[in-house]
């Protein structure tokens, strides 16, 4: 639970809520074609998940958020650039909508989807 202090009491944000924002932001990023389960074993990593908490891990450290996200990227895009914009987009969207500070976004590329082999 993330906690925000307000004059009238506290606001609690669940992992689920934060994970939803993170995974939606990732899916809006160009090059990301899916969120993968974080716990799936190698080999079936390409299994796409619907529940955002399955592909996002959120931890708290000194009032800052550390977000890990597990994604599938389109084959043929420059993975580094895509991953960069995923992390920037997640940081921006989560900070904007919650007011919390995101100190780290770790993007785990779990697989590539091949639409065209060229």
């Amino acid at each position: 639970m993330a906690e925000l202090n307000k004059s009238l009491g506290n606001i609690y944000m669940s992992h689920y809520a934060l994970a939803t924002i993170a995974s939606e932001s990732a899916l809006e990023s160009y090059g990301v074609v899916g969120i993968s389960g974080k716990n799936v074993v190698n080999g079936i990593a390409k299994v796409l998940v619907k529940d955002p908490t399955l592909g996002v891990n959120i931890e708290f450290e000194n009032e800052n958020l550390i977000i890990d996200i597990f994604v599938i990227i389109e084959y043929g895009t420059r993975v580094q650039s895509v991953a960069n914009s995923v992390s920037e987009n997640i940081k921006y969207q989560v900070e904007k909508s919650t007011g919390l500070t995101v100190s780290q976004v770790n993007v785990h590329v779990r697989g590539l989807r091949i639409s065209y082999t060229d």
Partner: protein
Amino acid sequence: MAENPQDQNQDIHFQVIHSIDGQEFKSLVQASLTWLRTNQQMINSLNVFPVPDGDTGTNMLLTMQSAYNEIAESDETRIGRIAHDLAQGALLGARGNSGVILSQIWRGFARAMDNLETMDADLFVKGLVEAKNTAYKGVVRPVEGTILTVAKDMAAAAEEAAFESNDLMKVLETVVEAANESVRRTPELLPILKQAGVVDSGGKGLYIILEGMLRSSKGFSLETPLVMVQPIEGMKLQNVKESVEEGQDYEVVVDFKPEGNLDLHNFYEGLTEIGTSIQVGEGEGMYRMHIHVETDRRYDPIDYTMKFGTITKVAMENLIEQTGGIGADGKGLEVAEIQPGQIAVVAISPGDGISRIFASLGAAAVVQGGQTMNPSTEEILRSFENLPTDKIIILPNNKNIILAAQSAASMTVKSVRVIRSKNVPQGLSAILRLDPDGDLDSIEKQMDESLTDIETGEITTATRTVQINNVDVKEGEVIVLHNGQLIESTTNLEDACFEFLSCAGTTERERITIFYGANIDRPKVNEIADLIRSKYPKQELEIHEGGQPFYQFIISVE
């Protein structure tokens, strides 16, 4: 977008080109690169928000540079090979979101070129279609109004053009025109662009790349950047205020009518020496110039603009003063804090006093607007988009705003209900039914029902002589509307109030509430209130400062 002056009225007939080989294509790409470099800053300036794509122009340029580097030394003549190398270079150098999309576009284009020797018009079309398909493959939720849309519109235009002509340059020309049109339409598709008053930067970059090819084949210069001109209504200048540069303390906005044809390029050039955050808008023969300048130079933009035409209006604001305050609409209004999952009410209010009343009754957002100052769909949309809930109720409080509210409702994924409140008392009556934790459907129903519980009177001064509903109205007289219908025109305020109160059957009711406007002073209000009190002693009388313009009184009886 204005063409450079030197391009205007040039009607160059160039020879028909049926196909090009790899080397010819390479020189076109080089032209794209040069033209993109020339316009890099212009594209960078199309910035919407401080997320990833802050430097679209630079990112696209670096991507194109990396792409071109792969073919620069090549003497390969097969277009298929050149295109593949180009795509490979774009992939390796892709920078930022727009760079990645651009590399996908080249990748698709190259796939269509296959291993072929030359490209004719049909193959060019195929290239653009493949480019579009590949670009769309890379994202789960394509956002329209971006570079993707421009790529799509280009492909569609190319397919049509190839029916008409097999001249490659003719097809290219049509594609460039379509791209320009498509870029121009991006703010219609993507609200955030409209709010910022810009077109999509990635789309613009793609247009520049194609236009560079066309310009070089027509023999136009690739060294002088294009100058941005946007429609005046697209200039949302309050957004610019958020980024005040060090030392640039004053914002100056000048409206002017140019003498003869305005040489935009020249005009712009001079402005860059005066200040920053320059924007120029155009509409119906008029231009609007916006600039941030240092305190000492605050009159320079005015003197400068005078050389180009007749100034019609000047507005100057001290930005440093403003950044201390809250947003323009808020004015320190304390609105209800909404928890996720609760119902949030957005009220449209014609005056400050009424805004405060709505806020005190639990409105989560208040948008300024009323008679003759209808808020736009965007303003309404913006008011609730950032609220942390997806259950929204809008109280338009004016019959002319209901439509804008409904269209705002249709543009969001949130569940938005529009209560058809036609005036402020109806809106207030509705908001009293608000239970933030209640069920959206049942609250909506209760609010709808509340609208008929209340009799509303609006008292204002007639602006022209007219006859409506068999009532003769003379300009300057006081007129009375009962639930929106004109019922009486008199010479004084007292009579107007009593006429409404008797029509509304006040003797059978319990409470009279008066909101007085900005155009009447408190002693006069008290005087009339005393008269009402003595005539209706059994009814409770409440008086509030409404602050609305035009209407001396808005009265409700319930």
